């Protein structure tokens, strides 16, 4: 806009300087005056120059017609003054044309008139010129103003431009200052970076893509033993890469240069080896990053000498391996010890058992009893230690089975009732709330725990009462909880003792040590088992008043098995069985054989698994007792072979005999096809129980053992005799006989007693009967108790009426002396 104005004004100025319009106006007047002068002369002369006159006229005419037509005079013609005079002059010319164009004589005649009109029009020509001049004066004023405005605008524009330039200059100045500052900062940062690099604890090495070293800091000098000035510029690979890694290093650099895969760059920490100036190879940990610079890609490596760390790690690993090996050695040692101690002990105890059955003097019998007691104690100590080891090693595995808890507890009570009786202590148990007999749980472990806790209660109570209360409580979050509370009125414990009672090797008051003894591991093991079963065991006690142990176990109630024969058989109704005994150890074999024979069984022996397999193929045995570790073919292999074959004994129950008590192995035995596991050393009880369990499912009825054989389970009497001695047993039996007689008399007088009292009396004597092995009498008494509790008087009376007959059959067999007839096998 501004520039177009300036250009326009420049053009106008240009035209003003050659203003032919003004010239034309004055020229018009000049030409008029020439014509007028010529005309004046012509009128005076006799022979006028008409040709010249005509030409003057034509020139003036031409001029005026140009003024009237030309577009450049259009604005001029817009002036009224100009156009009016122009019209007058044009009228004059048009009127004069006829005279000028006439013949010479006519023109001469017209000259005076022409002159007169010419003179008359002269002021108009003059005005024409002047009006033009005025116009151009005004026009030029206008143009000057316009130029002035344009120049002012130009000045403003220039000023604005100047300001912009000043601003730009300031801005550029600032940019420059910033750049200078940045450059200074960059230099400073570079210097700082150098300091950082030089003071870094890690070696810092920078190289280009060719592997030429660019930076080699102080730590690198120290680590590699090269001077920085020597290192910089030399080849990275040659300098610090060990010879055996050189090929890989150069391949890597080639890959990096050609844009291939980067195995190390930007991949975090890498461990490799490096080479010192003296040729030593040492482990380094390093990280490499790539950066792009003007000179191409560079690689920055941070390296750390990890010789010390690697050394420490190696030592740690060695130490750990050693510790693990030591731990394993310990476990192995314990396992071996368990086996190595149990096997001879098995032999020892077995032979003691056999020895006891021979004719002995009273003294010899006492010595044997003492040896047997010591041997069993030793065995229990070994078992305790082994249990703890297994639990602490996390190797304690549960073996849940379907079991009748009431039966288990009854057995334990029966087992302890003898001891309780000896202490003049009442031992009883019962359910609170609904009974839950059948559960699925680890029977052996629960038995161990209860045996321990109830055994302790009986041990520490004199002339008191031990009651075991069981109840199933439903915990909504974990399901049914079996709560067993063992309450005694014994000596109790002070707070200190309570706090330590579950600790290992904790034994009670020294005054009782003589009587009760033990490793002090009993409750420790009990607690471990309870924990393994997912339960808790707690104690509350008051010194001198008694203790209460509360055991809470989560249980899984199950439906009672429909097959009655699955129920635990009592030893009394085991029929004589045909048993294959597989055992390579001669002593063990003899012991087991003697025990089995003495129990009235038929025994066939095999010295190894292969023989056993062959025998089982040919003959159908009722039971196979299978040792595990044997030459030729071990027990597991033999079991699998028997089970896999179609021999006569392919489905015969097989019971493992093992000193190896590790739970995981026991599971393996069962999966091989074994039905049960008997832990060595063999006890007569264990052996009989297993036979009873496995063989009772036979077709024959228990009656085969002979008349009266079922009335008394002699094992209990034998145990008591072993424990108490013949004389004490005789006393006990006498007291028992008196008590039974008294109770029978009491019961027969049932009309004078409440059913509650009847049930209680029957219950108590039933417990004593169980402890002494009077199983028939116990059953009859329980029938009384059950009937009394249910309030069924007729049933009760009927049960009471049976009692004298049962007692009559039982009493003769309840002899403190050894029964000669049955043991002479």
């Amino acid at each position: 806009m501004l520039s177009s104005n300036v250009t326009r004004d420049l053009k106008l100025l240009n035209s003003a300087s050659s203003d032919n319009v003004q010239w034309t106006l004055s020229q018009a007047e000049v030409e008029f005056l020439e014509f007028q002068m010529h005309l004046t002369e012509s009128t005076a002369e006799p022979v006028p120059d008409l040709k010249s006159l005509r030409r003057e006229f034509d020139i003036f005419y031409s001029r005026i017609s140009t003024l009237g037509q030309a577009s450049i005079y259009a604005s001029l013609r817009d002036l009224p003054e100009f156009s009016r005079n122009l019209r007058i002059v044009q009228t004059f010319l048009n009127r004069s044309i006829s005279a000028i164009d006439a013949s010479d004589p006519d023109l001469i005649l017209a000259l005076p008139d022409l002159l007169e009109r010419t003179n008359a029009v002269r002021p108009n020509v003059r005005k024409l010129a002047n009006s033009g001049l005025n116009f151009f004066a005004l026009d030029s004023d206008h143009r000057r103003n316009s130029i002035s405005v344009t120049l002012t605008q130009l000045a403003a524009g220039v000023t604005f431009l100047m300001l912009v330039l000043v601003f730009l200059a300031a801005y550029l100045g600032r940019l420059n200052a910033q750049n200078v500052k940045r450059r200074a900062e960059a230099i400073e940062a570079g210097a700082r970076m150098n300091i950082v690099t030089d003071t870094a604890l890690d070696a810092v090495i920078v190289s280009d893509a060719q592997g030429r070293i660019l930076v080699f800091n102080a730590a690198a000098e120290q680590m590699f033993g090269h001077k920085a000035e020597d290192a910089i510029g030399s080849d990275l690979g040659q300098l610090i890469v060990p010879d055996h890694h050189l090929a890989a290093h150069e391949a890597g650099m080639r890959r990096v240069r050609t844009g291939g895969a980067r195995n190390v760059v930007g991949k975090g920490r890498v461990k490799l080896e490096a080479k010192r100036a003296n040729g030593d190879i040492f482990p380094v940990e390093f990280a490499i990053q790539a950066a792009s610079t003007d000179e191409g890609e560079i690689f920055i490596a941070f390296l750390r000498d990890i010789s010390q760390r690697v050394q420490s790690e190696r030592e740690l690993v060695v130490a750990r391996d050693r510790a693990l090996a030591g731990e394993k050695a310990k476990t192995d040692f314990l396992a071996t010890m368990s086996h190595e101690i149990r096997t001879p002990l098995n032999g020892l105890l077995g032979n003691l058992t056999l020895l006891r059955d021979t004719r002995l003097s009273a003294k010899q019998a006492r010595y044997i009893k003492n040896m047997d007691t010591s041997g069993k104690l030793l065995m229990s100590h070994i078992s305790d230690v082994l249990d703890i080891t297994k639990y602490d090693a996390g190797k304690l595995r549960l073996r849940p089975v379907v079991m009748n808890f009431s039966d288990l507890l009854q057995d334990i009570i029966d087992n302890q009732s003898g001891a309780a009786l000896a202490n003049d202590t009442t031992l009883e148990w019962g359910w609170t709330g609904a009974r839950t007999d059948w559960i699925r749980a680890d029977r052996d472990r629960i038995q161990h725990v209860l045996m321990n806790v109830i055994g302790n209660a009986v041990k520490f109570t004199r002339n008191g009462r031990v009651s075991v209360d069981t109840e199933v409580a439903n915990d909504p979050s974990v399901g049914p909880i079996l709560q067993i509370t063992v309450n005694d009125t014994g000596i109790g414990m002070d707070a200190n003792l309570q706090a330590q009672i579950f600790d290992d090797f904790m034994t009670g008051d020294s005054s009782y040590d003589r009587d009760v003894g033990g490793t002090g591991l009993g409750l420790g093991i009990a607690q471990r088992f309870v924990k393994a079963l997912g339960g808790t065991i707690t104690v509350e006690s008051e010194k001198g008043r008694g203790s209460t142990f509360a055991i809470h176990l989560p249980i899984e109630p199950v439906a009672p098995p429909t097959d009655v024969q699955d129920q635990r058989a009592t030893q009394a109704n085991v029929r004589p069985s045909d048993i294959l005994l597989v055992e390579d150890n001669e002593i063990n074999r003899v012991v087991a054989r003697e025990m089995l024979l003495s129990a009235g069984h038929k025994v066939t022996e095999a010295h190894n698994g292969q023989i056993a397999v062959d025998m089982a193929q040919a003959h159908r045995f009722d039971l196979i007792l299978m040792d595990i570790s044997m030459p030729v073919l071990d027990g597991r292999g033999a079991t699998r072979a028997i089970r896999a074959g179609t021999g006569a004994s392919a489905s015969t129950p097989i019971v493992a005999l093992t000193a190896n008590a590790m739970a995981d192995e026991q599971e393996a035995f069962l999966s091989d096809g074994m039905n049960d596991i008997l832990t060595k050393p063999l006890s007569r009880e264990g052996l009989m129980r297993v036979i009873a369990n496995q063989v009772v499912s036979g077709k024959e009825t228990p009656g085969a053992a002979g008349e009266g054989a079922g009335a008394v389970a002699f094992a209990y009497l034998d145990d008591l005799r072993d424990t108490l001695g013949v004389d004490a047993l005789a006393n006990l039996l006498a007291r028992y006989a008196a008590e039974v007689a008294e109770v029978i008399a009491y019961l027969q007088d049932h009309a004078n007693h409440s059913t509650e009292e009847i049930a209680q009396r029957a219950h108590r004597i039933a417990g004593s009967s169980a402890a002494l092995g009077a199983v028939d009498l116990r059953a009859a008494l329980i029938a009384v108790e059950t009937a009394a509790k249910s309030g069924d008087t007729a049933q009760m009376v009927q049960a009471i009426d049976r009692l004298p007959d049962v007692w009559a059959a039982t009493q003769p067999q309840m002899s403190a002396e050894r029964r000669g007839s049955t043991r002479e096998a």
Partner: protein
Amino acid sequence: MLRHITLATAALALSALPLLAQDLAAPEGDVILTVSGQIATTNVDDTAQFDLEMLEDLDATTFETSTIWSEGTQTFQGVSLKVLADRLGIDGATLRATAINDYAVDIPLTDAVEGGPIIAYKMDDATMSVRDKGPLWIVYPYDSDAAYRSEVIYSRSIWQLDRIEALD
């Protein structure tokens, strides 16, 4: 050899000049243009004088253009300044053109180009009287080139032309 050619060419050129001079006949009608000064071809004394017929005999140029001195467009016919300069062998830098009323203007010979100004003797197919800026009018083709629409060119557009003097 080269020298001989140069001399021969020079001789030819010198001998050609009289031939050309003889080509221009003397005018028979009213002389409407007199060219004097640095010219090679003459017919009367040292000048070249033309009547209308002689001008019309020269190669004519015709174009249509508007002018600032008239309304609308007109068709002009005439001798281009270049043709005239060539015909007369004008040897100078400037043509001083003078009108009947002695108005004079200098036209540089560089203006005499093809498609340039003509000495018009006809406007809209009619000869021009003195009253109509005749008989001769130097007209530039104003419409064909913006460069011809300047004050300088306008001032060179002399009408009522009757003399041209070729100056150094």
